[in-house]
């Protein structure tokens, strides 16, 4: 659930665009470097973007009865890190706006910030920490994906609360609504990816090693 067109005043729309811009620029710089180092990554990046986008069109059953769409950013974060994820999110959000009329154009900056920067950032930090203390893979995947989702929506709530009314009371209201609609989604997406990684590990262990390498621990 992204912030819709018209929900942010011009000042806030501009503010979030300006805040997001440096992250996206940095992410794009990373993308450029990855491709320069290994041109074969061009198709890989594009396919990952497509994968996230297609997955974000899955209608998952959720507890409230309505269906929801996963964000897919937790997955991309584990794969490429925050920088690249922010660029991917921008592309995916543009597609959602232009192919599904979800989200908006003036709210693009705010949505990139919540979905492509804040959520992934928290998720990535947790992911690294968990890798260090050797949390078992299923738990690690679940928590990373769940956090990416939940922090995306917490950020969205903050953005809306900042724009409307006294901050604290409206934040609680927005959070209350999101708790009902988005927490279940986060759990469902977390479970989905945990099963996914499990299947992948069995089908193509070489690929799983590529997404969830133990190298983060080795680096540290």
């Amino acid at each position, binding site marked *: 659930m992204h912030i*819709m*067109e*018209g*929900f942010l005043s011009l000042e806030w729309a501009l503010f979030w665009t300006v805040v997001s811009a440096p992250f996206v620029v940095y992410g*794009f710089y990373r*993308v450029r470097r990855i491709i320069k180092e290994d041109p*074969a990554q061009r198709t890989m990046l594009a396919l990952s973007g497509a994968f996230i986008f297609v997955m974000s*069109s899955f209608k998952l059953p959720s507890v409230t009865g309505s269906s929801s769409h996963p964000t897919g950013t937790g997955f991309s974060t584990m794969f490429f890190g925050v920088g690249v994820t922010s660029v991917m999110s921008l592309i995916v959000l*543009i597609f959602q706006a232009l192919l599904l009329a979800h989200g908006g154009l003036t709210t693009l900056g705010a949505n990139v910030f919540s979905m492509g920067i804040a959520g992934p950032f928290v998720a990535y930090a947790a992911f690294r920490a968990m890798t260090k203390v050797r949390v078992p893979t299923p738990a690690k995947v679940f928590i990373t994906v769940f956090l990416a989702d939940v922090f995306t929506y917490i950020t969205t709530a903050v953005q809306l609360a900042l724009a409307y009314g006294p901050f604290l009371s409206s934040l609680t209201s927005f959070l209350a609504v999101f708790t009902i609609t988005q927490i279940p989604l986060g759990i469902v997406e977390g479970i989905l990816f945990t099963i996914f990684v499990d299947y992948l590990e069995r089908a193509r262990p070489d*690929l799983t090693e590529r997404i969830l390498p133990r190298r983060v621990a080795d680096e540290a």
Partner: protein
Amino acid sequence: MDDMFELDEMAYRSAALRWSPAGKFVLALTMLVASLLANTLVVPLMVLLVGTILLGYSVRFRFPKVIGALVLEGIGIMVLGGAVIAAVTPGETVWAIDLALLKITFSGEGITTASMVTLRALAGISVMLFFATSTPIPHFADMLVRFKVPKLFAELMVMVYRYSFMLLDEVGRMHLAAECRLGFHGRMNTLRTYAKMMTGMFIRSIETSERSNIGMQCRNYQGGVGMLRQPQGMSAPWAVLCLAVFLALLELNLFCERCGILLG
């Protein structure tokens, strides 16, 4: 998923397909910004009207079901968001609901703000749908290049677009196959099926990416792709039109403000 196919095909059949993408984009943005700047409900109403007419023209006044579905989905989110905004905005209480656990109060200011926001969102949906139904993603990417966005970004975007449809085809087939074998029977089962589909899709994407790299080499790819048809730029008439629309909407806003019509 089918929504995407439909909107994409619609864009290629649109009556406004040949309009300059840059022109359409700036026009859409102009109207969106004007409706954000306005402090009277008349402006977003006006934008909604213009947006709907443009959308109608774009789809040749045949509104397919998918648009209805998208608008309804939008309205659902809007109503929810609007209600929260109405409840959280401080002011004199005009209406209150007493639930067992919490008391929700709506202030007059809150309701005004909420209706303003909801109208803006509605106007936004109509304008965005106009742009979406008349501008395929590749045209949008072309336009970005015109606006000096790095070529690599536009290129990636077009590739993501192309691969998305390829994966969607694949997913569609897998979905059908899974359905034939009762893969969506029950919640947990559905989740497991989705996870399986994702695994299949993911492995498929990696393999496709490996083969596409070979394909690119076979076609003499050297890094950096040129374009045969340079996209139509932003012509002077479009710029004038956008400016005129913007000024007209601002003027409308001032006029309504002076007369005190539907202030938000």
